[in-house]
């Protein structure tokens, strides 16, 4: 029996773009384009199976081997540090990890800084490298609200265009990490499907380079 290559794609626009790249790489799966609520699609002829998962879950599927490869944002990789191979920077979904605050924010180093964020580990690591004493408030969304309501002094979040910040009268204080989508692979499954994975990687790499 031929082995399937299991690919976890992030639901949404980025995932659709990534699928197009996989299709070009010789792993098409026409049924994926049908407009329905199915989450899993396979093409037995070329031996590929795609599934749509929540973008922040891709790394988990890959780390635990349910998917052989997947596409995940660098933010997720930095936050959860999954034990996976990071094979390629797809240079898509580019944004920055940044500190933002109210326009009149000034860091008072006499006080503990309160930071609201979805990315607890990233924020901790960043401020530890600065030697800054902080308190973290973990939020799951609408992070921008925190400084406005006085819940926190600043936020650590991904910033793409900065439009949301602007509309809420917040400003970027510092961008400290470039974020983009990465091709990741499960370390064990890589050994058993290395030919297929290498094929995907080299074709995606070519496509990234021509787009660049």
């Amino acid at each position: 029996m031929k082995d399937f290559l299991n690919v976890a794609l992030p639901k949404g626009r980025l995932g659709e773009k990534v699928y197009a790249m996989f299709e070009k790489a010789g792993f098409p799966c026409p049924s994926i384009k049908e407009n329905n609520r199915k989450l899993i699609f396979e093409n037995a002829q070329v031996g590929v199976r795609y599934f749509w998962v929540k973008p922040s879950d891709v790394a988990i599927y890959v780390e635990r081997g349910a998917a052989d490869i997947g596409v995940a944002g660098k933010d997720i990789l930095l936050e959860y540090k999954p034990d996976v191979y990071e094979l390629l920077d797809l240079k898509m979904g580019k944004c920055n990890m940044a500190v933002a605050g109210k326009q009149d924010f000034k860091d008072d180093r006499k006080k503990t800084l309160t930071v609201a964020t979805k990315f607890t580990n990233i924020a901790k690591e960043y401020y530890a490298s600065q030697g800054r004493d902080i308190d973290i408030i973990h939020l799951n969304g609408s992070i921008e609200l925190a400084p406005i309501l006085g819940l926190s002094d600043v936020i650590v979040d991904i910033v793409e265009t900065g439009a949301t910040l602007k509309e809420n009268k917040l400003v970027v204080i510092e961008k400290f990490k470039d974020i983009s989508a990465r091709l990741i692979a499960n370390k064990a499954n890589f050994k058993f499907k290395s030919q297929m994975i290498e094929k995907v990687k080299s074709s995606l790499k070519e496509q990234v380079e021509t787009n660049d």
Partner: protein
Amino acid sequence: MQDLYKVLNSDERAVYSLRALYKDYGYTQYKMSKFEEYDLYVKNKEFLVSDSVITFTDTDGKLMALKPDVTLSIIKSNKDLSGGVKKVFYNENVYRVSKGTKAFKEIMQVGLECQGDIDEYTVTEVLLLAVKSLQRISLDFVLDVSNLGVISAITESLNVSESVRKKILSLLGEKNTEGISYICKQENVDKDSAELLCKLSYLYGESEKVINELKTLNLPQKAKQAVEQLYEIIKELKRLGYADNINVDFSVVNDTGYYNGIVFKGFIKGIPTAVLSGGEYDLLMQKMGSKKCAIGFAVYLDSLKKLEEEKEDYDVNTVVLYSQSTPLCEINDAVFKAKKDDDSVLVVSVVPDKLRYRQLVDLTKGGKA
């Protein structure tokens, strides 16, 4: 004997089969107590896979720990090695924090350690035993081998800080070629070394192919020797007919604070993490005050539970159902009759919920069903 084998789970089977294998090669079993003084682990925290250790205070006030690791205890017990090599194997439970639940877990570990004057033969033997261990678990396996000597020869020649060196190694472990090239640019690493490191990050595959490719590279002298050492060992394993599933992969980095030289990781199809991990750990020996060398590996049996077991259709073959009024002799006769076919019998007065059985002998109605 056959019957006993039937009773075992796949991981239990592996334990006994591996123990037999190591015994056949003259390794003696090392049995240790469940506890060690906490001191031992604090001093060597970096060697441990997880930071947390279960501790408790002994009756004499000493802080003790439930062992998270076996290797350290074996080194401690072998403080004064004379000439030759001491070969031991172990089969112990260790206590570690699992990444998912962040709670302590008991993990069954089987492994072996060689300590003393490690020579090329010993390294080859340990690698051979690693291959044979994997083979006994599943025929669909891969052993990835690397020689840290190659990587350290390159990184030592770079003029970078220890933290950058560590960063490069962890990027190598991720096969993150772009990350390496980025950090090399940032640290002004010369172009040739940067290219070499990038190349090592994605070189992967059948041992001979990779080694031949390595030989064409412009490696520093020390790295060349390390490649040569790797080549000699794999050549010998090939001669013995065991090289088919061996790949060379420099993403096997383990912890370079302790490991040096040959390191390896074993994988089995269907299990998403490495099931076998080991290497030469002379640096750990030095740190613990020994001048000798060492090599060893451990097999993590908890992951084997993921291997598919043959599904049994029935929990029990025959169920004998009796009531308080059934005569004792009738129950026993029914049991013996069912046992004649050498099958499992469950004797109950109420059939448990969701029990799957092949036949029911109902004695409650005064007759056989």
